[in-house]
């Protein structure tokens, strides 16, 4: 975390970026990242209704469940993701934010699975860990809203009937 914070602080020296956490799984990561980032910065959150989620509610287009509170026009936006996988969510977020006239849009992700990308043209500038094709819980990551509270990341092994 310290390394990520130092790298981001170096790149954004003299600026005051807005960290935008993509709820919910990035909650713990953004809290730790913020405390490891020794420059002025703001924090905001956004939440999308993921495909297949209960919040999707039969809609055929993505829905923003919680939009930004801050005006990002002219500001440096750093999207904080828990994991970048297919890239579909980050692609949607970055394109949506670009329409609002920010000074820049970049992303930091705790975990990365680049081998599963469907969208390659993403603003991922900082990566915590490139991880294998495994399921993780804890540190904000859940499965069916469980285990987010575990203090660190753990590998989840599903039994055959859960697959």
């Amino acid at each position, binding site marked *: 975390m310290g390394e990520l914070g130092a790298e981001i602080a170096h790149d954004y020296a003299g600026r005051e970026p807005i960290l935008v956490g993509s709820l919910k799984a990035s909650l713990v990561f953004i809290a730790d990242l913020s405390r490891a980032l020794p420059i002025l910065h703001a924090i905001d959150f956004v939440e999308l209704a993921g*495909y297949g989620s209960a919040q999707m509610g039969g809609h055929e287009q993505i829905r923003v469940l919680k939009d930004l509170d801050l005006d990002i026009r002219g500001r440096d936006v750093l999207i904080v993701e828990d994991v970048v996988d297919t890239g579909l969510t980050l*692609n949607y977020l970055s394109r949506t934010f670009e329409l609002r006239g920010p000074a820049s849009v970049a992303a930091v992700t705790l975990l990365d699975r680049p081998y599963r990308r*469907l*969208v390659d043209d993403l603003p991922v500038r900082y990566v915590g860990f490139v991880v294998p094709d495994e399921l993780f819980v804890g540190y904000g990551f859940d499965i069916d809203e469980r285990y987010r509270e575990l203090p660190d990341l753990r590998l989840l092994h599903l039994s055959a009937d859960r697959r």
Partner: protein
Amino acid sequence: MGLDTPAFRAFRGTEPPRFASPAELECAKVLDYYGVPWEYEPRTFVLEQDEDGRVTEAFTPDFYLPEQDLYVEITVMKQSLVTRKNRKLRKLRARYPDVKVKLFYRRDLERLAQHFHLDIAS
């Protein structure tokens, strides 16, 4: 196959797609949901021809994502049964080195299904 297809918004093809499996339909719905333009089987790549120029082997990836310039083939076959598909993919990459193509295996789809709560049963 009689799969009910919704009115897609990000579909960029001309003919209405006729999906060969529920997995293909679900992938189309995910792409559509996130607003990623897609086409369905828009191009067939010739892999082998005989001496008379007749096509003896070809490959038609399931999806094309024009903004990514990426072809995506999905398979619900078990890993042990995808050897033939892998071989075709290697031929395609050798013959068309500039074409970007990605194969999503059953395991990838199962991960996506867990993430997006998909019904990919074939």
